[in-house]
């Protein structure tokens, strides 16, 4: 465990970048430091591998004061990933990744074999091994940065806004990749970002820092969203924290109904019997059970389905896997106000109204039920 104990950093010019910060960073999980630019995140991170020495206070790693450890071996036991990757432009990708193993005295062959193994782990094609950094995209360079940090299998990974410079779609991919790698490797990760969404998506614990380097709140993301410590945290979380909090509730609690669902080959009587005042629209499914679209029952009365006149059903959510947030999103986007739930294979599992979702949200909040990191 990394323990930051009332640490203060005062730069020579008098700037107090970090002010009496205390944090206990749990092992084998992602702890995110988040806050506005200039609030001391980088300074805090760099004090952990002693690129910056604290003015006051101590940092211990598994009970040992890091200030008393040889600095270079300390650093080699902590992977470090930065914005724009900071790759060595004069070395090939495979040699970039092999840097720390080489420093640790591994043979060239063993280091390179290890590097190739890591390229696969972070999702880099083996054909890139002999390329140079300028020949890679920003997202690929960032993956190389992660692979390089992991090369010597350090127990600790320090990441300073590693995904801030790539576009949102690539960033989402990198975030998912990081969560997957973390599931496999179980590192102790300290992750710095100024993006609260990223913090909530990645963090097991999130430390919100305010300008001047003071800790505003240290809590799991769901708790942060449900009970922000003060108005600073509340403002930092943004206006839609209620909606975002729904990401932590599973859609499993929703009661689906199958009554307004008809198959394309249904008979006219069957169709007529399905429409109710509460559910004036019917969802039409194909013979394979997948959704085709919503139809006005009036249109169906003739007994045949005009496929070109169906209303779009929006984006369905996967029942049990997606969160209440995804379900609500589907209902809001649907022209009928009903969300379509599908199973893992894309077949319709049922439909649910905005009203039912609203009830589920209220009872979820009431019970404070929390599901660990539901996707979406």
């Amino acid at each position, binding site marked *: 465990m990394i323990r930051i104990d009332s640490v203060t950093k005062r730069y020579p010019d008098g700037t107090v970048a970090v002010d009496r910060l205390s944090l206990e960073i749990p092992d084998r999980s992602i702890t995110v430091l988040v806050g506005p630019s200039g609030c001391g995140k980088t300074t805090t991170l760099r004090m952990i*591998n002693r*690129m910056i020495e604290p003015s006051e206070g101590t940092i211990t790693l598994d009970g040992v004061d890091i200030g008393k450890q040889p*600095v*270079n*071996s*300390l*650093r*080699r036991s*902590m992977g*470090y990933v*930065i*914005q*724009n*990757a*900071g*790759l*060595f*432009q*004069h*070395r*090939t990708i495979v040699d970039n990744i092999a*840097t*720390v193993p080489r*420093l640790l005295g591994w043979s060239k062959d063993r280091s390179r074999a290890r590097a190739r193994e890591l390229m696969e782990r972070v999702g880099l094609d083996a054909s890139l091994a002999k390329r*140079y*950094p*300028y020949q890679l995209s920003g997202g690929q360079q960032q993956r190389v940065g992660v692979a*390089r940090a992991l090369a010597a299998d350090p127990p600790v990974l*320090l990441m300073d806004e590693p995904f801030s410079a790539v576009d949102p779609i690539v960033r989402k991919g990198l975030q998912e990749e990081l969560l997957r790698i973390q599931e496999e490797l179980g590192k102790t990760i300290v992750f710095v970002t100024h993006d609260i969404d990223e913090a909530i998506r990645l963090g097991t614990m999130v430390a919100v820092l305010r300008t001047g380097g003071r800790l505003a709140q240290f809590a799991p993301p769901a708790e942060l969203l449900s009970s922000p410590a003060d108005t600073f945290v509340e403002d930092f979380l943004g206006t839609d924290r209620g909606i975002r909090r729904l990401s932590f509730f599973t859609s499993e609690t929703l009661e689906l109904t199958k009554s307004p669902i008809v198959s394309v080959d249904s008979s006219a009587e069957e169709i007529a019997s399905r429409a109710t005042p509460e559910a004036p629209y019917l969802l039409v499914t194909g013979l394979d059970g997948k959704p085709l679209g919503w139809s006005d029952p009036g249109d169906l009365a003739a007994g045949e389905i005009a496929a070109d006149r169906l209303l779009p059903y929006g984006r369905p959510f996967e029942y049990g896997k997606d969160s209440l947030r995804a379900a609500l999103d589907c209902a809001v986007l649907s022209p009928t106000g009903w969300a379509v739930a599908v199973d893992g294979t894309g077949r319709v599992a049922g439909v649910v109204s905005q009203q039912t979702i609203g009830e589920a949200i209220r009872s979820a909040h009431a019970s404070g039920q929390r599901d660990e990191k539901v996707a979406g």
Partner: protein
Amino acid sequence: MNGFFHLPSDLQNTWLGLVGLHLREALLPVLAGLVVALPMAQLCVRFRWLYPPVLGVTTVLYAIPSLAFFVVLIDYTGLSETTVMIPLAVYTLVVLVPAIVDGIRSVPQETLDAADAMGFGPLRRYVQVQLPIAVPAILAGLRVATVSSLSLVSVGTLIGNQGGLGNLLTDAMFYHRPMLAVNSVVTTAVLAILLDAALVLVRILLMPWMPRATRAKRTRADARPEPSAIALEDAAR
């Protein structure tokens, strides 16, 4: 062309012999200059305040005519090649020191941070990261210094047959054989072109890691005094 390679006997050398002499007198000073400039540049990077005075001193040294150097040096090193090469070595500093400083400063902060974070010591970081990344800029400086040095060797004639191919110029006047002067100028020019091309080749072979586009841009920007401009200026000395 008859007699182009037939040289007066007072030179006590063949044409090829003169070429060899000329190359040695031009290149050894560049090498010596590089050996001195590397630590000087590193000091200038490390202690920023040192850079302006160092630049000033190298510029002043460059402005001292070689004849003045000879007058002082003859007492110590005599009428020798060394007397010619010392000022030439000093002249290279005006190009090499800024080239190396710019090269080392061009290493991105992130790259240095990454090296620190991975536990590179300062020496290892210099040798394995900063220096290799600075090499393109250093090579650009070397191109200028080499061409300039090549054209400057001729002044060695002033202290008696120590000017390599430049010795042909005095003989051209002395014996009224203008062909000797043509020989001197053409041979020096060809050597300059060949050496410059060799350095470009070294860069292409040694630096596959540089993006093509910036490769061209960068060398143009770094070789601030154009080689040809310096050579012209030097010929006027």
